[in-house]
């Protein structure tokens, strides 16, 4: 073999071995430094500094931060984390870099406001974010919707929610339901139908996976709450009428002339406790319900989505 052939063989072998080795090592290194990324990312948590540091490539940086925000949330959600402290800064940086990028606002509305573990538990920052978005995109009716959404779902401030929906309804090309929702806020804010309307609106007007999944989950839970409320009313009627608590759901079904024992969205029948409370079979499957929970039930703190988006 000539010396040139020898060199070629050696170099080619070296190339293959070192390529494989570096790929493997990179894999290892990733495992050693999972958290490093976000701290790095947010070393500069002041949006204005980031903007200046972007040297004019704001749009690109905004996209980058938005992607990181989604990944951050997705990873932590997957890891069943208890807090999402970096979500607000990430969204704020994104929107300062590019105020016209709309998805972050909606993401913020859905996930900044709710308490842990479904969200960051920072409704005030969510409100600020929405107002910032509206200021820079006054003709985007959906942002007003998002604002009203936060007031409605987390802060339960139906007056402000109504105001937001009202403002939004005045925007040209606003979706007709904005007027509808504004009207609903006046009288029927606490109704299940209103909540269902809102969550359906969110579900249908978003294309972001996480948001849709969250909305569907809420809709399922609204159904449960509604069912339990109605069933509880039936149980109470039975009790009053018969002077005793019903022994089982069968009795209630009979008394109300229902077609069968009512089932929850998972297909499991609702149950009655010994002292006449309607209960859901697997409360863990319904992270947002407020009715039908057994006494002393504590959420284990993980939010698992059961439905497909």
């Amino acid at each position: 073999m000539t010396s040139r052939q020898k060199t070629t063989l050696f170099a080619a072998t070296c190339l293959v071995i070192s390529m494989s080795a570096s790929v493997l090592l990179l894999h290892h290194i990733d495992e050693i430094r999972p958290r490093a990324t976000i701290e790095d990312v947010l070393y500069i948590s002041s949006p204005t500094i980031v903007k200046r540091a972007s040297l004019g490539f704001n749009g690109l940086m905004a996209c980058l931060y938005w992607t990181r925000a989604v990944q951050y949330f997705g990873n932590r959600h997957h890891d069943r984390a208890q807090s999402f402290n970096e979500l607000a800064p990430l969204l704020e940086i994104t929107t300062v870099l590019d105020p016209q990028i709309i998805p972050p606002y909606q993401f913020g509305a859905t996930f900044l406001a709710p308490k842990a573990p479904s969200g960051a538990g920072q409704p005030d920052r969510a409100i600020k974010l929405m107002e910032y978005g509206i200021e820079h995109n006054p003709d985007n009716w959906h942002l007003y919707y998002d604002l009203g959404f936060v007031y409605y779902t987390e802060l339960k401030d139906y007056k402000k929610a109504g105001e937001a929906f009202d403002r939004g309804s005045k925007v040209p090309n606003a979706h007709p339901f904005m007027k509808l929702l504004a009207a609903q806020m006046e009288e029927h804010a606490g109704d299940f139908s209103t909540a269902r309307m809102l969550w359906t609106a969110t579900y249908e007007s978003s294309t972001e996976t996480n948001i849709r999944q969250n909305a569907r989950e809420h809709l399922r839970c609204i159904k449960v709450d509604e069912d339990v409320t109605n069933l509880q009313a039936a149980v109470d009627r039975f009790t009053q009428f018969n002077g005793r608590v019903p022994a089982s759901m069968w009795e209630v079904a009979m008394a109300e002339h229902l077609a069968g024992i009512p089932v929850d969205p998972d297909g499991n029948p609702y149950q009655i406790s010994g002292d006449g409370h309607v209960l859901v079979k697997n409360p863990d499957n319904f992270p947002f319900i407020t009715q039908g929970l057994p006494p002393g039930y504590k959420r284990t703190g993980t939010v698992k989505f059961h439905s497909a988006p």
Partner: protein
Amino acid sequence: MNARILHIASNTFREAVRDRVLYNLIAFALLISGAAILVGQISIEVERLVVVNLGLTAVSLFGVVIAIFIGIALVSKEIEKRTLYTVLSRPVRRWEFIIGKFFGLAGTLVVNTFFMAIGVFGALLYVAHRLTVSDASILVALYFIILEFLIICSLSLLFSSFSTPLLSAVFAFSLFIIGSFADDLRGFARLTHGITKWFATGAAYLLPNFSALNVISAVAHQQHIASQLILQNTLYALFYTAMALSGAVLIFERRNLK
């Protein structure tokens, strides 16, 4: 054989020095001392942060620019100016030439970094008035920066073994930028599906990962760097450099020097 590589390396070093490359140290010194003095007006915690961050980032950027532009010139210039002909007509093998050039360039950068490190520590001493044990992690950051340089030098040599000087510089610089965002790239790759996922993941793993070697902000916060990470990064840099140099050798062995 080893003697020839050593001779080529030291000649390369001499070229860099006589090319007044080391004058960049003056610019660096001005920058870092200016910053230290300016920043000395603010409160304690932040000034340390600024000096470490600015200093290490400057070391990194200055070095990368040198590594790219000199690294490219190493082979391209020699071919263009035909100084290569009289070297290769001697009992010097082509691969020895590439390896020798690499060591010469790497050596230049190590020396450069050494002087810059003195500057950084000097500025730090000035603003913090004393150095603590935890400042030793700055040495780790500098070590990682040198590992970065090794990778970039080898990439510069790889590109200049077959491409024109301008294109090589563009490629090398692009790889540096992309490699600095390697984490995001891998994140993107995870979000794709199908064929795109294969390509994206492949690219994300084969492109040089400079974000793993960038611990500047961690060090600025006096965080401890895991020794496992030091080991793995060292191995990674060595293997990646070997990969790029093997490529350079393979290409250069075949090149017709018209």
